[in-house]
């Protein structure tokens, strides 16, 4: 042990003595001790780490060593950090708590290394190196704060700003622009460029993404995102040198369901949101962390609002569900929240027109009618956007009225609510990444659940997993085999006659995904029993791997099945005299008798309102606190971002008030009390942000004796952009439908 090291030890002990807080109390993810370093202990002694302030990794960066032998140690500004082999210099710096400026590097995309902003100095290297593209080598001494690194950054900034327009005051990215921030931090205070700036023709990428291509700094993040994550080859790089530009090669729109994400990854204001253009500044917005309800994925979103208006929706990071992307429907449907809203209780008069009335009168009318019909003639349907609390209240209320005909639309008339594994994505969305063979049965994940599809695409891209698809011809953004269109193909696989059977049975982690569109088929049980036969034969359900998945369509479906919203009789709607629609717009009302009394409780004047006798205005998901369970069984919560519209009320409050007026008062007055009630029915709904996997696999189910019909599988989602009442009211979604779905 050298003298220097001893000296440093003494230094350390004296420091402990002077400061009451022990250094061990501070938790650090990466711990390094000089003893374990390397043969050259003297080098470490020359720059004792004790003199350095303790650093926390940037943005919660963490590292897991799968193989401890792979760990190497590098020094960032003299601070030793242990990283696994193969990490880049930039990642090592992040772990060491040094944030390297970057434009082109994005952790979820391939490395381009073309912006040169991440230059750092490495000892014994003649030039500064681009840290995002340079693999870290053992013992490397990285210097991020030296004059050379600073000068390199300043030079890069000067080149970037040379052709960047000075239109920050009118740029939508202003305030959240990487270029703006980094030029403040690393740029020079003056430029030497006196010629004309270059200008680039704007491209038309469709109704969602606005382009101002002069602002582009050619980082190619959008090109890499489109080809790698979205799986469309629409964007590319044209020209060379100063003529270099991003664009679609021919005049073409960007037709991806994930195209909105290029807005987020663009470090400058070249790609911005078209609907949000010039609407607000980001610093005047209030962010509310919430959940998306347009599909069953439950993407984590942030609702940015100004006053009573939702201004935009952005993704929130959740590695298990949506990573950091969201679909275009999620991002852009919010303008539907301002159109077609129901804001007053209304009763249809004798002339067939609605008349606005007070809540007192509306509830009194409903309560009077519900007592005039027989209990078995009462039917309740929960809509696809209903939260768990209101579904619980609806079920309790109608049960108290003597009826047990309550269901959630999309679940079919005889749903399987007994085994949770029968309606959940048992692998979990992130668990799909481990799969090596996919069999998609009657599901088009690209339109049914775009984020699940992005996961499948990621898996296929990384591990070349095989995908087999049974269903009508459809679009995929990865390689797949179209095995057939109907249940007979499924039977062939189950009997081992189909070539795909061998792929499935030879796979290590096979995955079957059954679409929820099948729930509406009459031979649903038979199809599920065939699928279970395949699962049994292919060893797909094992203690460590439950590869039999169901992909639900709507946000309310999983919670409704957890709560047991199962209709008692299949033909209740034909004999109904009182129909309570809680936001149910996709239920077919043709079979409802003409003398039936229909109550519509919801937030949009959509399809069911035409048949309704009484309208009770409710709050949309941006205006209330509600629990939703996503397709993989993870309970999540929406939070109110904006106030309710007009005289609308929260869904559960309406049912609670109605129950009192009707004389069967429900025993809860607060959300907490209603959640206590849910605890007795489905406690998993209270474990927020935590996936509750199914306990029993579907193999417990008795085999169904029914025969499968030969009808081919249908498409569950005809129009990706318009699937519920909010999206149908949205102008942007209508534009997308018109322009992007053009065949």
């Amino acid at each position, binding site marked *: 042990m050298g003298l220097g090291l001893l000296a440093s030890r003494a230094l350390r002990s004296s420091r402990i003595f002077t400061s009451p807080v022990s250094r061990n109390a501070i938790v650090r993810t990466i711990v390094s001790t000089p003893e374990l370093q390397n043969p050259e202990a003297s080098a470490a002694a020359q720059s004792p780490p004790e003199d350095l302030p303790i650093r926390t990794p940037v943005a919660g960066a963490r590292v897991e060593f799968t193989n401890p032998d792979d760990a190497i140690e590098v020094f960032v500004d003299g601070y030793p950090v242990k990283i696994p082999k193969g990490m880049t210099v930039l990642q090592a710096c992040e772990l060491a708590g040094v944030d390297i400026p970057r434009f082109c590097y994005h952790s979820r995309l391939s490395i381009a290394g073309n912006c040169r902003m991440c230059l750092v100095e490495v000892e014994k290297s003649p030039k500064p190196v681009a840290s995002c593209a340079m693999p870290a080598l053992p013992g490397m001494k990285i210097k991020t704060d030296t004059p050379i690194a600073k000068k390199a950054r300043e030079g890069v900034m000067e080149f970037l700003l040379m052709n960047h327009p000075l239109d920050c005051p009118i740029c939508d990215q202003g305030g959240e622009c990487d270029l703006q921030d980094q030029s403040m931090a690393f740029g020079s205070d003056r430029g030497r460029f006196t010629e004309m700036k270059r200008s680039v023709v704007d491209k038309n990428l469709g109704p969602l993404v606005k382009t101002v291509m002069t602002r582009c700094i050619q980082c190619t993040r959008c090109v890499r995102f489109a080809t790698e994550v979205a799986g469309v080859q629409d964007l590319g790089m044209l020209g060379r040198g100063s003529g270099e530009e991003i664009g679609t090669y021919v005049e073409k729109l960007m037709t991806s369901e994930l195209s909105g994400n290029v807005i987020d990854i663009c470090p400058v204001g070249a790609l911005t949101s078209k609907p949000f253009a010039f609407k607000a500044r980001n610093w005047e917005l209030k962010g509310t962390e919430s959940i998306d309800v347009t599909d069953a994925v439950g993407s984590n979103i942030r609702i940015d609002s100004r006053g009573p208006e939702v201004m935009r929706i952005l993704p929130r990071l959740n590695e298990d569900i949506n990573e950091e992307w969201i679909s275009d429907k999620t991002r852009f449907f919010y303008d539907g929240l301002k159109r077609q809203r129901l804001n007053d209780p209304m009763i249809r008069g004798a002339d067939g027109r609605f008349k606005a009335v007070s809540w*007192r009168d509306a509830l009194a009318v409903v309560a009077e009618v519900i007592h005039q019909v027989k209990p078995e003639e009462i039917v309740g349907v929960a809509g696809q956007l209903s939260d768990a609390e209101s579904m619980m209240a609806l079920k309790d209320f109608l049960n108290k009225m003597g009826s047990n005909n309550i269901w959630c639309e999309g679940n079919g008339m005889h749903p399987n609510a007994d085994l949770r594994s029968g309606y959940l994505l048992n692998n979990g969305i992130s668990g799909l990444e481990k799969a090596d063979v996919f069999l998609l049965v009657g599901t088009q994940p690209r339109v049914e659940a775009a984020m699940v599809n992005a996961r499948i695409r990621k898996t296929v891209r990384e591990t070349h997993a095989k995908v087999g698809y049974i269903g009508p011809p459809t679009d995929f953004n990865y390689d797949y085999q179209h095995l057939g269109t109907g249940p007979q193909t499924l039977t062939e696989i189950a009997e081992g006659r189909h070539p795909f059977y061998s792929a499935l049975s030879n796979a290590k982690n096979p995955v079957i995904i059954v679409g929820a569109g099948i729930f509406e088929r009459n031979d649903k049980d038979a199809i599920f029993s065939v699928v279970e036969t395949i699962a049994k034969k292919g060893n797909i359900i094992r203690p460590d791997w439950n590869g039999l998945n169901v992909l639900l369509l709507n946000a309310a479906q999983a919670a409704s099945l957890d709560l047991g919203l199962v209709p008692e009789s299949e033909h209740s709607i034909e004999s109904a005299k009182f129909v309570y629609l809680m936001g149910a717009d996709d239920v077919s009302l043709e079979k409802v008798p003409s003398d039936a009394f229909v109550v519509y409780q919801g937030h949009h004047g959509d399809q069911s309102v035409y048949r309704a006798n009484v309208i009770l205005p409710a*709050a949309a998901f941006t205006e209330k606190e509600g629990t939703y369970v996503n397709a993989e069984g993870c309970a999540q919560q929406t939070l109110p971002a904006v*106030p309710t519209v007009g005289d*609308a*009320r929260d869904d559960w*409050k309406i049912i*609670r*008030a109605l129950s009192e007026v009707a004389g069967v008062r429900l025993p809860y007055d607060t959300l907490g009390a209603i959640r206590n009630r849910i605890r007795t029915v489905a406690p998993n709904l209270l474990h927020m942000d935590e996936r509750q996997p199914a306990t029993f696999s579907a193999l417990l189910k008795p085999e169904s004796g029914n025969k499968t019909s030969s009808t081919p599988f249908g498409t569950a989602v005809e129009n990706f952009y318009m699937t519920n009442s909010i999206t149908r009211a949205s102008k942007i979604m209508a534009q997308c439908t018109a322009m992007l779905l053009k065949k």
Partner: protein
Amino acid sequence: MSFRGVKVPANSASLEEARTRVFDFFRSACRSIPTIMEIYNLEDVVSPSQLRTSIASQIRNHSHITNPKVIDMLLFKGLEELNNVVEHAKQRHHIIGQYVVGRGGLVQDLGMKDQGASNFLKNFYDSNYF
């Protein structure tokens, strides 16, 4: 009767003193009620006892205040208001709006409809936020 000569009183030394001052103020307000009834022509809309109740309830609104300085401040404001009222610095609708109708508003639903309803239902009819 006018309060023109009334001076701003010195600060109350203790809570006790402030308390007696409040009672004095209430008494003087009650004594001026007949004048107020007369000059604002209130006989057909309100009775003296209702006005007394109204004054008392405004004082009770601040019953939780124990700081003599704050009580003095509120007393001063009350005295000023009373002075304005007695001096006919206000008009009839001011008095009716503030002391006769009160915060409930002109259209009060005093029917029997909500009797027996729970607090939840009453709040529900009022607004979504409770």
